């Protein structure tokens, strides 16, 4: 099996394409901070360079990789318009694929203020909102919110986590109908597009995750009884 750097940023060691203005940089992501993105073994292409558009350059890069021209490049994170794994541009037909979303921001060490997003990566159905609000009210712990996350394990490789906790450092915080949703940074990439529903019925009641990005799911990992 591979050796994965659990303590590092999810993009560490991953070949990415970073778009900044009319320049695309492809390289292996070494480090991300709030201010910069460091790529190693990198190549850069500017729109029209060598008679190729950026889309044509990315299409070939995604199929075959790039010729290294820079051992190390440090990019201004604030100037990037997108940052995504190069494999997300891959199309088996050879065409160019535009990644659906840029990678989530890097974890920020020592963040004093919670990070918030106006466009939430997760959504809750009205039934889920009502049940979470009811349970939080019953807990009578005003600093608690709904924590959603993922962890390794389960039949399909990842399992969802749902609990009520206080905010932790580095959390992404989402305001939702009077309560807060906390997402740890490492889980955000897996939770984008996920919906949380609450079902009542003959089959019992419980929270149920829906994930449009999942390629494989199992019944036992989907539903959480409370």
């Amino acid at each position, binding site marked *: *099996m591979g*050796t*994965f750097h659990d303590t590092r940023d999810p993009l560490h060691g991953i070949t990415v394409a970073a778009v900044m203005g009319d320049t695309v940089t492809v390289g292996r992501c070494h480090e991300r901070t709030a201010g910069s993105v460091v790529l190693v073994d990198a190549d850069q292409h500017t729109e029209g360079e060598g008679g190729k558009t950026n889309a044509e350059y990315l299409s070939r890069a995604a199929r075959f990789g790039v010729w290294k021209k820079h051992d190390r490049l440090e990019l201004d994170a604030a100037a990037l318009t997108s940052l995504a794994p190069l494999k997300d541009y891959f199309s088996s037909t050879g065409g160019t694929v535009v990644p659906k979303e840029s990678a989530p921001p890097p974890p920020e060490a020592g963040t004093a203020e919670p990070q918030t997003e106006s466009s939430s990566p997760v959504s809750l159905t009205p039934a889920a909102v009502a049940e979470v609000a009811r349970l939080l009210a019953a807990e009578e712990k005003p600093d608690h919110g709904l924590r959603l996350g993922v962890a390794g394990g389960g039949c399909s490789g990842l399992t969802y986590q749902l609990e009520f906790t206080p905010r932790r450092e580095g959390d992404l915080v989402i305001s939702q109908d009077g309560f807060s949703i906390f997402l740890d940074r490492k889980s955000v990439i897996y939770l984008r597009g996920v919906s949380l529903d609450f079902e009542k019925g003959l089959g019992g009641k419980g929270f149920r995750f829906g994930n449009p990005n999942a390629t494989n799911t199992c019944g036992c990992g989907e539903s959480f009884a409370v």
Partner: protein
Amino acid sequence: MPYPEQMVAPMRAELTSSGIQELRSPDEVDTFFRDGSGLSLLLVNSVCGCAAGSARPAILQAMEHGKRPQRFATVFAGQDLEATARARELMGDVPPSSPSVAVFRDQELVHFMPRHLIEGRSPEEIAGDLTAAFDTLCS
């Protein structure tokens, strides 16, 4: 600079113990491609745990597939430098990438999986992509 041989020996053995031929010199690369025809798979091995650590078991899984290349070989990037350089000459204008997987028909490169399609993925996912390619190439 190559790593100590005792460190990489298990990474070689993971492949050679399953019948994958290791090519340690340019001559061995030339001989492998000169003496065989049909589909051949060449894994450019690497010490990188994040990517090669998944690529090696993926190759072993893909070898179990019904449709597959007739011959499997490997060169070790960063270790057997001259053999790897010779193998890369056969890949034309494809940029160096390790680990990577190249499939040749005779001496012509017909399929290539660069590192960025390996890293961060499970052996099962990588093997799935390889066997899909085998199905196309062997049809």
